[in-house]
């Protein structure tokens, strides 16, 4: 329950939208940090603004938003039903590796290979995520814990595979071979590729399912009261498994898009540095799993982070600050407005 219009005694209370207050608070704390390091906060924030929403920067922002919004959906779908998927990192790299492997080694014409790669990535990652659901339904291990714990081995095994069996030995780096040009996702303009359209389509699908289908209704009501959903006939275990599969599949898709659309190979240790998963989780938490709000928050965070790069270029304030700002926003809302799994 976010801001209540009236407090317990029935007196109406002034309502400033909590997100705005949180943002202001984060800006103040961030400003203090910047000042303490000897730089100018106003200049820093100006750079963030220009560097993300300025005409020249917009393509970069959208490009960053593609995986970030994707990972936001990964977190938002289970969150809508009161569940948490913390294994996005592992699921994403599994998808990325599968996509790279299929694109490089599948003997099929380019575009077909690309499509198969995308689908295979989604299925592989989805199955891995569904394992975490199975861990809870069959073995009582909370999904929150198992999805996170499973992420580490996934990253480890994928890392191993890239460094040894599938390694491109012509370069000295831990990466696979380049995927053929015909299998790459076509570019739209500048850094933007078809991946953006794929994510937009997925986002639209998620919103549609949430608003207009039985599945969406049942998931939403599970998030409000799980026992009520079960009492009403919702098959809770199957639902959990399917939701986690969908969530993981999107994560795998995001990994595939990064490989097929930007990097054109799987380079170890480059997927996790941008923190798409955790920023996506924060965006989803802000909205309590509600898809449209989560997507908006995801786009906002993408803008914040792209702006952060510009800020670092122009003022040499480390761009990690944007991640600090994000955390402060989520903490402020979690503490002051009970935002979280039940917004």
């Amino acid at each position: 329950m976010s801001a209540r219009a009236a407090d317990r005694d029935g007196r109406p209370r002034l309502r400033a939208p909590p997100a705005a207050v949180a943002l202001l608070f984060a800006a103040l704390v961030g400003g203090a940090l910047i000042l303490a390091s000897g730089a100018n906060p106003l200049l820093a924030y100006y750079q963030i603004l220009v560097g993300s929403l300025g005409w020249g920067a917009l393509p970069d922002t959208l490009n960053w938003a593609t995986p970030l919004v994707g990972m936001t959906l990964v977190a938002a779908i289970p969150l809508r039903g009161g569940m948490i998927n913390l294994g996005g990192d592992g699921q994403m790299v599994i998808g990325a590796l599968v996509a790279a492997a299929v694109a490089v080694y599948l003997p099929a014409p380019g575009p077909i290979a690309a499509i198969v790669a995308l689908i295979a990535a989604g299925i592989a990652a989805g199955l891995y995520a569904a394992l975490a659901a199975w861990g809870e339904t069959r073995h009582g291990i909370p999904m929150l814990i198992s999805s996170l714990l499973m992420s580490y081995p996934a990253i480890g095994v994928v890392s191993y595979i890239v460094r040894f069996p599938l390694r491109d030995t012509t370069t000295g780096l831990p990466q696979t071979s380049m995927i053929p040009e015909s299998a790459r996702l076509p570019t739209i303009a500048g850094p933007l590729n078809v991946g953006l359209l794929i994510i937009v389509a997925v986002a639209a699908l998620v919103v549609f399912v949430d608003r207009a289908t039985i599945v969406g209704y049942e998931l939403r009501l599970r998030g409000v009261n799980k026992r009520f959903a079960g009492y009403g006939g919702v098959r809770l275990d199957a639902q959990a498994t399917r939701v986690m599969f969908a969530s993981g599949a999107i994560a795998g898709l995001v990994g595939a898009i990064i490989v097929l659309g930007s990097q054109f190979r799987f380079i170890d240790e480059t997927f996790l540095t941008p923190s798409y998963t955790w920023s996506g989780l924060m965006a989803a938490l802000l909205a309590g799993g509600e898809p449209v709000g989560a997507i908006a928050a995801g786009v906002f965070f993408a803008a914040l982070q792209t702006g952060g790069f510009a800020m670092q270029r122009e003022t040499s304030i480390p761009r990690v600050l944007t991640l600090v700002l994000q955390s402060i926003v989520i903490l402020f809302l979690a503490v002051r407005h009970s935002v979280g799994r039940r917004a």
Partner: protein
Amino acid sequence: MSEIITPFMMQSAVQAMTPILLAALAGSLCQRVGVFNMALEGQMLVGAFAAIVGSYATHSATGGVAAAMAAATVFSLILAFGATVFRGDPVVICIGMNLLASGLTAYLLRVLFGVSGTFSDPAIVGIDKIRLPALRGIPVLGWGFASETIITWAAWALVAIVSVVLFRTALGLRLRGVGEQPDAAETLGVNVNLYRIVTILCGGALVGLAGAQLSLGAVSVFAEDMSAGRGWIAVVAVMLGRANPLYAAGACVLFGLADALSIRLQSQGLPNQLTDISPYVVTLAALVISHRRRTRAARPSAEIAAASPAPAGEAQPEAR
């Protein structure tokens, strides 16, 4: 057998266990008082970073340890007040804290020391090991403790102390009541929020100690995100141990041995990407086995229920 379990392996196992043990102790206390603490990872990172900063500034290990405990305790104020007075969702607060710790330490690393990734400096003084050559004669256990820091010794002592306090003293009884049934405790005059806040802060100090051991206990280095999942393993140890310090310590021993085993396998030639994952595999297996044994006894598990997104965790509507 002695080829598999070497003195070096035991020494590194005990050393590696220490941060997880301290974190599990903190987590157990928080669980006992009714707050699910998932921010152990972030708290440990904050402690590790503060230890480096403190040691660098004061050129002493003690300065580092003190800074670590102080910083982690202050950091824990977020959870302490957020989950009690402000009634926020502990799970979201903890996730936020973990991310804040990661970002903030990375930011400060760049701003204070001008580096990214890892930081090491001759000015940093690590914690000395207490060498007890006499123990080298005792197989396995002796090997483990022949050369460890004071923090390691403190950790094991604290396991015993916390157990006694929890189960034998009036304070411990009240603490357990607060976690079990807060409104019952409140009606009988126990200030639930106060107990929770103080417990979380004390837990923070313990995890700060863990962080100090991490960055100053072996090689004096800070690396970004160096807690690397240890906080999560501590969370699992708390769950497996049902918030009982002794059982949680047992789980930590299990994980420490798995970790040491993986290092051993590494030296045998297995790639480290694969061996690094063994603690997690062991953890997952332990969770499955533990659940199986518990369902056989058909007793409901309060911590699992508390741990899942359910009333401590899942959407339980508040009847008005």
